[in-house]
Structures are given as structure tokens and as C-alpha cells.
């Protein structure tokens, strides 16, 4: 069953008199409960794709379908973790989470506060509940943002490099937490996950979409059994094969040296 689908979606920005195409006729469908990673070099259009899925940017052409229906604007069925931490500086870690929860309605503020505390605990931030963002490190702020979206329990999780600014140790903890939360849920969430980390993409995903030059270039299915455990996955032969396959795509991109914003 298809949960969400992009149909021939493009996004153009006005650039003076010219137009700049930030996304070029992208189409893909994601099944319910599927975990799909977007991978690709900087500027290839990953964040743009995610913003369109979130309903934060209307596509210039094409359609976003959710549960088969055309979707416009943001919705409670989707939760977003942004590439740049986007906590509200005037709210404490806990308040940042309850503000989102309150929009769902139906619970007393004490209950909301307790839920927020529980999710902060899960991302390893016990004792930091009442700290303001400026009192937290970048990685800690990102963990609050993750706790915020997890607490909302949306049907669809949209995550833009959520572990990009997190140190290696906490990255492992958070990846395992995400696996555990998703695998443990009988009503599996649908996740679109942007990352630069090839290991991470394979470990977490059912499919990896390789993007290049504002388009999707290859759709790589990751056929590894679930529930997944890092130790089991890393040692399989399949893992090495997938890793090589994706790295070859990057290597080709370097060799052909076309398209994406070139980093010197």
C-alpha cells in the first residue's frame, strides 16, 4: 500500500530573470511502513525533496500524494526534523516538545510535560529538561528536535540529516533507538531519511534513493531482514555489497564531474 508519492515534481526558484531548477522531475513512491533514505552529494536536492514532502514548499509542477490524495501544506500526519536545529530559543527543551504536542490537543499540560520528559529520557537528555537551547551543545539540540518529532508520533517521519551533528557514540545510540522504535512498533512508521552516511543509510533503510543533479538516479533496495541489529548487519556479505554499490555511484559522480555544486 502506497503511503506517499511524488509525481513528476519539479521546483524552480526565480534567479533574477532566469529560473533556477532546484528539483527536476522527481517521482517515487513510498510504501506504508517503509524506510527510505535519500543520499547524494551536497546541493543535489535532498532537503528540497524533504521540504516538499513536508508541505513547506509547494512544488512548481507535479504532485504530492499522501494516502492517494493530493496534499497541500503541512499536516499532522507528518513530523519533521530539520537539517539545522530548529528549536525555539525562548523555550526550554521540555517546552519545545510540549508546544508541538499541544497542537494535537486532548491532553492536560501535566500529561504533555510527562510525555516530553519520557522522550527526552529516551534520547539521553535526562536532567536537561529545563535547559534553554543556548545551554545545550549542537548535538544535544538536535537530540531535542528528534525527541520532539518522536513524541508527536506522526504516521510519516521526515528527517533531514538528523544525526549529522551528533558525535559517533551518540549517533550509534540514536540509530539503535530509531531502529528499536520503528521495529518495535506493530504499526510501523513511514520514514524518509536524508543522510550523507552510507553505513547509516544501509543499516536503517529498506531502500536507498541515490540523488544526483536534482534528480533521482538510482533506486537501491536493501534486502536485509528486520528486526535489525547493528552487529548482525555489519558482518553480512550483503552489507559490503550494498556499501560498494553506493560508493561506486559517488565515485562515478566524481569521475564524470558534472552536475551538483562542485566542492573544491
Amino acid at each position: 500500500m502506497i503511503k506517499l508519492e511524488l509525481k513528476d515534481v519539479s521546483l524552480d526558484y526565480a534567479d533574477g530573470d532566469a529560473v533556477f531548477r532546484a528539483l527536476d522531475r522527481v517521482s517515487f513512491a513510498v510504501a506504508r511502513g517503509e524506510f527510505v533514505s535519500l543520499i547524494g552529494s551536497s546541493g543535489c536536492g535532498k532537503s528540497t525533496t524533504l521540504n516538499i514532502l513536508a508541505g513547506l514548499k509547494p512544488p512548481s509542477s507535479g504532485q504530492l500524494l499522501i494516502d492517494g490524495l493530493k496534499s497541500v501544506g503541512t499536516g499532522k500526519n507528518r513530523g519533521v526534523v530539520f537539517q539545522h536545529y530548529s528549536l525555539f530559543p525562548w523555550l526550554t527543551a521540555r517546552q519545545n516538545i510540549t508546544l508541538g504536542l499541544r497542537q494535537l490537543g486532548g491532553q492536560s499540560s501535566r500529561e504533555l510535560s510527562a510525555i516530553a520528559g519520557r522522550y527526552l529520557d529516551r534520547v539521553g537528555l535526562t536532567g536537561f529538561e529545563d535547559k534553554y537551547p543556548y545551554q545545550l551543545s549542537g548535538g544535544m539540540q538536535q537530540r531535542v528536535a528528534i525527541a520532539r518529532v518522536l513524541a508527536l508520533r506522526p504516521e510519516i517521519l521526515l528527517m533531514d540529516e538528523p544525526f549529522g551533528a551528533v558525535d559517533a557514540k551518540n549517533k550509534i545510540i540514536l540509530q539503535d533507538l530509531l531502529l528499536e522504535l520503528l521495529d518495535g512498533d506493530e504499526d510501523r512508521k513511514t520514514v524518509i531519511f536524508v543522510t550523507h552516511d552510507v553505513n547509516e543509510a544501509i543499516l536503517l533503510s529498506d531502500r536507498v534513493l541515490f540523488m544526483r543533479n536534482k534528480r533521482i538516479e538510482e533506486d537501491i533496495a536493501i534486502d536485509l531482514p528486520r528486526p535489525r541489529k547493528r552487529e548482525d548487519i555489519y558482518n553480512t556479505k550483503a552489507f559490503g555489497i550494498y556499501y560498494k554499490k553506493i560508493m561506486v555511484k559517488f565515485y562515478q559522480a566524481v569521475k564524470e564531474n558534472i552536475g551538483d555544486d562542485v566542492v573544491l
Partner: protein
Amino acid sequence: MKALKNAAGAAHIKWKALIFKALPHLMFIALLLLISSPSLVELKVRGAFAAVAVMIELALLCNWRSRSAHDLVMMVFAFLIVWEVVTTKIPNPNKMLFPPPENVFAIYYTDWKKIISGIFSSLFLLAYGAGLAFVSGIVLGLTVGWHERLRQALFPVAKVISPIPPIIYTPYAVALLPSFKIASIFVIFSSIFWYLFLNMIISVATIDKKLLDSARSLNISPWGLMRHILFPYCLPGIFKTLPISMANAFMVLTAAEMIGATSGLGWFVKYYSDFSDFTRVVAGIVLIGLVVSVIGALLARLDKLVIRWR
């Protein structure tokens, strides 16, 4: 030998610091001696001035750790000593224009009823006008700043009106409006409102796009957006303009009182200027300075209390 010399040097520095620390207290004693010594001009009451000096000294003793309090008190005492000496210890060129501090501070004792009612009538008008200006400035600023079309229509209007100094139309407002109260509330209101309104529009319109996306992704309601995102985002800016706004408001209020009032601090100064009673004029000016400073200090404290996220 060398060690001894070093010790002597250290002791020397220590002495210097100690004298510096004691300086305001020595000045306090000097001031009391000056007050009690004979004066060239006739003094009515000396007690009020002495009491003020004692109060300043006590305030310093309560804040004896604070370097800035130490320096400030030193400056105040220096000023009072010069004032005292110039007006009472050397031949005073014009007793009417240069009233001795004893007589000035005695006014607070003899005229206290008039002064208290003056402070209250001024502060009442100030609270009224400023309250109206803040509530409407914030609500309208948020709304207009947020709605593109309203902003484009009203921003130029605010930009033209806000730089007109309200003191310019204060006399006209007093003449035009039916009562002095309404006129002064109006000028206080306009001295704060336009500047605040303009600032709110600009800061709402330039809010960080990432924060807005973050708020939108939480499906926040339009009211929630105003209350939980835009308002707190603008709050530090509001506090930043607050001291200037309040000083401006006080300026137009006192100006209005000088024209049309029958009570209030501005009226007090103006009324006695007309009689050339400069002792009371100086007392009124000092008092206005004090009231403005106290309001400023309270606002600064409120700022620290409210803006805890730096």
C-alpha cells in the same frame, strides 16, 4: 633584602587600594562636616540634605562589594561637595540662581504633599499612555508585520509618522483635545506607539525562516504562532527599545504638563520657574531625574527576569 623591598611594594599597593576603597566614606564624612560648618548664606533646614547624604552612604554600605556602586557614590558625593562649597562656603554670586543644596533638599520635606501628588499624577498618565501604546503596538505590530498586504499598506505610513518628534505637536494636542488628561495620554501614546509599531513590523517580517518552517511543521495555529513564536521572538527587541521609549514618553509628558496641567512633576518645575523660585525648580529637576532613573532600573530588572534565554 630584595624580598623585603617586594613586601614593602606589595604593602604600598595594598595601602593604595585601601585608601581608594575608603574614599567615598571619607567624602561622606567631609560632606557632613561641611553641612554642619557655618555657611555664608542663610539656610532654612540642614537636616534634609544631611539625611540624603546618610541615605546614599547607607546604600553604599549595603552594596559595599559592588565596584560600580563605589564609583557612582564617589561621583555623587564629589558633586554634592562641590555644590555645597560653591553655594555656601564661598561668596555666592547669585543666591537665587544657585540655591544651596540644604534648601533644595528641604523642599522635599516642606512640599512633600505636592511632590507626592505630582509623582502620582505624572506616573498615572505615563502608565495609562504607555500601557495603551504597548498593548496596541504589540498586537497591531504582530498582525501587520505578519500579513504581507497590511504590511505593504501600513509600513510606509508608520515610516513617515514615527520620526516626527511628538514633542513638536504636544502644544497643539493640548490645545486641540478636550482635556489635559486626554492630551497627555495621547502624546505619551504616540511617543511610544509609532516607534514600537515600526520595530515590531520589521522584526516580524525578518524572522528567521528556519524557525517559521519549524513552527509550520508543528501545525501551529495562527493564534499559537503569534503567541508562542512571533511574540517571544520580538520580545528582546521590545525590551531593547523600552528605556528610550520611556524616556521619550516622560519627556513629552513633562512638556505637556508645563503647558496645560495643574499638577505633576513638569507642572511643578514650570510653576515655580514663573515665580523665579529656583530652589523649587532645582528640587523638581533632581526629582524628575530620580524618577526616570528608578523607572529605567526597574525596566532593566524586568528585562533580566523575562528574557531568560539570552
